[in-house]
């Protein structure tokens, strides 16, 4: 009857009904987010329009990475909002209430707030992705389409992993550490552009530490049918996205340590 998925659906439905009780505000913020994020892409378009290509990348090629990253982040942001505002929950004691319920804390936090207004961001991501798919020279095969979908799903996991780690830090610092924003929003911006544009140490961080390049750039190169200039083996594009779920699993493990700490210090 009420398995984890069933409960998540009930939570999401409740969250959506809550938001619909402020309909005008919801519509306005959704449109607002769409316009803001759309204007971000206009800046990218202007850059390519001026120079034609950037280090051998055309606009539709760059748009593929941009779209993949935006869609992953939009989905993650819509479902993982509970983790994003988690610091306040710890401060106000709201987290105790979650511990008093006979369900996993992760499931309850995911269900906490299913944010509809993020659809503004999702719409932007999908539009950019659609543009990349038709305007470029991608030779679409079933395999490449599957890789695209898989990479986006893995991207959602990678971003969620970041949100979970960010939330976990609240067990120790109470205040959400702003430094995390450098990784979440910095990582988001980084993952929208081709990896070879960055310095080697910076690339290494986003391949091996926070694997956002693994869920956008490497599969992106395979989908585009480009030669990979950094010397990664051809199979990397197919396997690298799995770093996303692995990163999330790591985040959840640290989360468990955080809860143990919280329950023994009570702060």
């Amino acid at each position, binding site marked *: *009857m*009420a398995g984890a998925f*069933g*409960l998540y659906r*009930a*939570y999401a439905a*409740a969250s959506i*009904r*809550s*938001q619909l*009780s*402020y309909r005008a505000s919801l519509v306005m913020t959704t449109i607002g987010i769409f316009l803001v994020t759309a204007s971000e892409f206009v800046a990218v378009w202007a850059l390519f329009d001026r120079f034609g290509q950037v280090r051998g990348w055309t606009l539709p090629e760059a748009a593929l990475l941009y779209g993949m990253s935006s869609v992953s982040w939009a989905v993650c942001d819509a479902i993982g909002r509970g983790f994003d505002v988690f610091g306040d929950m710890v401060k106000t*004691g*709201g987290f*105790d*209430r979650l*511990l*008093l*319920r*006979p*369900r*996993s804390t992760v499931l*309850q936090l995911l269900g906490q707030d299913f944010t509809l207004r993020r659809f503004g961001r999702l719409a932007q991501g999908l539009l950019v992705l659609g543009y990349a798919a038709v305007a470029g020279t991608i030779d679409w095969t079933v395999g490449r389409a599957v890789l695209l979908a898989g990479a986006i799903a893995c991207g959602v996991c990678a971003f969620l992993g970041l949100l979970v780690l960010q939330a976990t830090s609240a067990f120790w610092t109470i205040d959400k550490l702003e430094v995390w924003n450098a990784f979440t929003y910095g990582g988001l911006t980084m993952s929208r552009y081709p990896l070879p544009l960055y310095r080697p140490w910076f690339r290494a961080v986003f391949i091996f530490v926070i694997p956002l390049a693994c869920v956008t750039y490497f599969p992106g190169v395979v989908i585009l049918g480009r030669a990979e200039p950094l010397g990664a083996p051809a199979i990397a594009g197919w396997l690298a996205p799995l770093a996303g779920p692995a990163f999330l699993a790591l985040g959840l493990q640290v989360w468990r340590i955080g809860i*143990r700490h919280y*329950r*023994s*210090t*009570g*702060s």
Partner: protein
Amino acid sequence: MPQIVVEQLVKTYQVAERAPGLWGALRGLVRRKHRTVRALDGISFAIERGELVGYIGPNGAGKSTTVKALSGILVPDSGRCEVAGRVPWQQRIAHVAQIGVVFGQRTQLWWDLPVIESFELLRDIYRVPPDRYARARDQMIGLLDLAPLLDVPVRQLSLGQRMRCDLAAALLHEPAILFLDEPTIGLDAPSKLAVRDFIQRLNRDRGVTVILTTHDMDDIEALCTRVMVIAGGKILSDGTLAALRGQVTRERWLTVDLASADAAIDEPDATVIRRDGGRVCLAFDPQAVAPAELIRRVTSRHAVRDLFVENPPIETIVARLYAAHGGGEAGSEP
């Protein structure tokens, strides 16, 4: 076998100490001094199924630490605790499915949703089968008179209405044990009475064990057959209200209305503790002087319009007990 057993429970917190002012805050960033606070200093008690126990103490005494340990949120440093045969913090999920918790200051309902939708979410969270849910829900609606509130978003409820809904929400999964944390705080008189009446019926008719923390002594007098007093992490008193009174003082109060507002009153066995015009309140020890004897003496020497004898209010008793143990504000509640 008692339903709740607590033995020698100890919990300490590390509290960061910080010098006052901006300079202190900056220094605290670099080096912090920590002070250990014993929130629970080896407390022991046992509670039988179906008891209604008041748990009182000044702020920072360890009340909420105890409740957190009993409800499985907090892992203590040492000591034993079993609730219905389980160690709360070892089997959190199985444990919390069997208990209900209500915080007077916080709601567990969904702010923007109609009350009934919160109930349905809780049904899914606690995996209550549909027939049992329907029965529990209808009983709660009847007992707490919730029918007119079900379609109202929680944010539009008055405090009293919200508390009634919160009580129902905590009981939809029919827990055997209910923890109430200041359930009457901020309520108007009729709401207080309704909440008290409900708690009493729940305990008497259904045998639900209730542990009630409160600062409102009227709650305690109206509801509890047993009171535990905690201060400084130690249980100071555990027994009936009468026993608590006896432990602190035998004192009784005689209040007399004198005909003349400025008559001097001087009794060797009694002390004047309050005087307001002709109304004088005398404290006396009934073992040193029998009440009847004191009344005879006072009425023979003064013109008395009215008089009555009473026990000191339970607030006074409790305040004295706290004070005797360095009580009062013992620190902040962690």
